[in-house]
């Protein structure tokens, strides 16, 4: 039987990293930067949080309290992704390097950092534990409201998540409001559509590009943190985060650069990501599970083609996406 009450919370759990990544990338792309380094940033965000939590758990030796147990990994994660954002900005905004190549290099670098420290953290720190299992920190991250379990299906569907999941939705809504309803957002969109015009209007293009990209990276990095601390219960395993970063980038197009649509799109994709677990195959046809795992990518490709076919003006990417801004070049 298909158990919808069990399925939806799992789909939403899967959707949170996608939503963080998607919101971060939308913010970045609105400033005209196509950051293909998001998968790497999300790895770095995750592993930085793990390092912070690991050190804290080792130091405190069991006497942990809630506030530092949450704030230390959170701060580390934000700092890690901020550094990645700065690397990207220095290369593409200040040094005007090609954004695609920089992004791919950042992904190589970020995934490398994640897997390297994930695999070597214990050896490097000389700690006496068999594997990185931050179950205590994870308890703080995944704690839901105490009365959630008493509310039956309602509690399960709406209240059973850790605080980062709600943060993802709040951030997405806030980003929509900022981008589409405020003056800062208007300036940001102007920078992404036509940096020369924005520059002539007195907007500091580079500052906007820096701010949007760094903020976007920090938001995306939280997706990595959520995945390790909440979804994976504090267990880091190499490459477990997989290709969610790339899916997040694809989701940006799916949600036509609007984080509000991104919320629904990411829940849909979260569901598609795990739907193969729910399609009955029987023991003899295990191979078809592998084909079902293809579904999110096929759907993305399909949507991509569909949106380009319809070709509506308001659904287009920011006009200067992927191009560097050079003031003296007209």
């Amino acid at each position: 039987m298909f158990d919808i009450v069990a399925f939806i919370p799992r789909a939403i759990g899967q959707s949170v990293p996608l939503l963080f990544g998607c919101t971060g990338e939308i913010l970045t792309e609105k400033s005209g930067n196509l950051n293909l380094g998001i998968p790497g940033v999300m790895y770095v965000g995750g592993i930085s949080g793990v390092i912070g939590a690991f050190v804290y758990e080792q130091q405190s030796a069991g006497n942990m309290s809630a506030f530092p147990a949450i704030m230390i990994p959170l701060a580390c994660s934000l700092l890690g992704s901020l550094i990645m954002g700065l690397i990207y900005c220095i290369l593409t905004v200040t040094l005007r390097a090609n954004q695609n190549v920089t992004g791919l290099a950042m992904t190589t670098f970020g995934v490398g950092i994640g897997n390297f420290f994930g695999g070597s953290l214990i050896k490097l720190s000389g700690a006496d534990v068999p594997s990185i299992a931050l179950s205590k920190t994870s308890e703080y991250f995944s704690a839901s409201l105490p009365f959630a379990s008493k509310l039956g299906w309602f509690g399960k569907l709406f209240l059973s998540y850790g605080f980062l999941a709600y943060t993802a939705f709040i951030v997405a809504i806030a980003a929509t409001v900022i981008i589409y309803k405020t003056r800062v957002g208007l300036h940001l969109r102007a920078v992404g559509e036509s940096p020369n015009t924005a520059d002539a209007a007195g907007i500091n293009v580079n500052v906007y590009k820096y701010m949007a990209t760094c903020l976007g990276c920090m938001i995306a990095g939280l997706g990595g943190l959520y995945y390790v601390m909440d979804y994976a219960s504090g267990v880091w395993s190499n490459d477990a985060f997989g290709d969610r970063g790339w899916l997040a980038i694809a989701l940006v197009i799916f949600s036509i650069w609007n984080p509000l649509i991104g919320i629904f799109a990411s829940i849909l994709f979260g569901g598609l990501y795990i739907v193969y677990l729910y399609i009955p195959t029987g023991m003899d046809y295990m191979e078809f599970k592998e084909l079902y795992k293809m579904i999110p990518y096929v759907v993305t490709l399909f949507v991509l083609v569909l949106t380009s076919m319809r070709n509506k003006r308001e659904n287009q990417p920011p006009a200067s996406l992927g191009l560097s801004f050079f003031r003296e070049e007209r």
Partner: protein
Amino acid sequence: MKKSKSEPLFHITKRDVMPWYKTWGIRAAAIVAALIVCGIITTITTGLNPFSVYASFVQGAFGSGRKVWITFQNMSILLIISLALTPAFKMRFWNIGGEGQVLVGALATAACMILLGDKIPNVLLILVMTVAALGAGAIWGLIPALFKAKWNTNETLSTLMMNYIATQIVAFFTVVWEVPKGSFTVGIINQATNAGWLPQLFGSKYLLPIVIALAVTAAMYVYLKYSKHGYEIAVVGESEKTAKYVGMKTGKIIIRTMILSGALCGLAGFLLVGGINHTITTTINSGQGFTAVMVSWLAKFNPITMIFTSFLIIFLERGAGEISTNFGLNQSFADILTGIILFFIIGCEFFISYRIVFRKKKETTSEK
């Protein structure tokens, strides 16, 4: 520009074309700076003195006769993939689907080896394998090209999605063909009969991919530089409007170029399965489709320069791999070092195309 107090400390102008020795000087300086940073980072994490770090690098790539061969073999595969992506990049078609195109080529090769092995003569089998691999790669390149040509679909994302679709198809067939059941690996194909294994060249099992890579390099150089197709690719890349204005059918050029690009990736897959690994896994290509993007770009899309850039990347990978095995570190250490070096090389391009003019300096006549 008028001289006044409000003039900034420095401003940035575009450079004229630099002489080639200066551009390569800047790039070499960037690589040296990157290697120094890498050395420092390795010293911090491993406690080695920097000089033995560099020694380990060389040891990893050239430590023994076998290591040298493997270095050149890996390099040739990476070189072929980079060359395959180059014509697409030259016309500003961001084909980051090399990974998938190699995988389907590898899958087609493996399928021929498993299904036709020992049923037809070996020479014929290898011929069928080649055709199947090139064809499969070409189809995988053709699909995003069709979308791009017809509806201007973003190719960066469509090729990326094609990668994952290819990965899952390979995973599907891995389960179908797995030996023994439940192991999720195909194992060495035709181990007893060696049917479909590519022949050794002059008694060396490493030489064939290297020779093919060099041949492809030369052919690609001529194709891009001296053929009509190569010229059309360059025009479409520089300005699609110009291309349309002079009457080039851009859609046709995009489709043709992507078929070539995909087919060459398929060739790399064919060599990986038929010549080197004799098996198929979802990770047989180990992310080289992405690395090749950077190899190709670092070489400024010049096939000859690509020999050096692919060598640089493989050298780093092998060297960092050696360090990680020696010190019980994770293999991903190589990715970190590669990333750092790429950042430096990407950054140094700025100093090749732009110059910083300081306020104190007399106004030079650099601006045209």
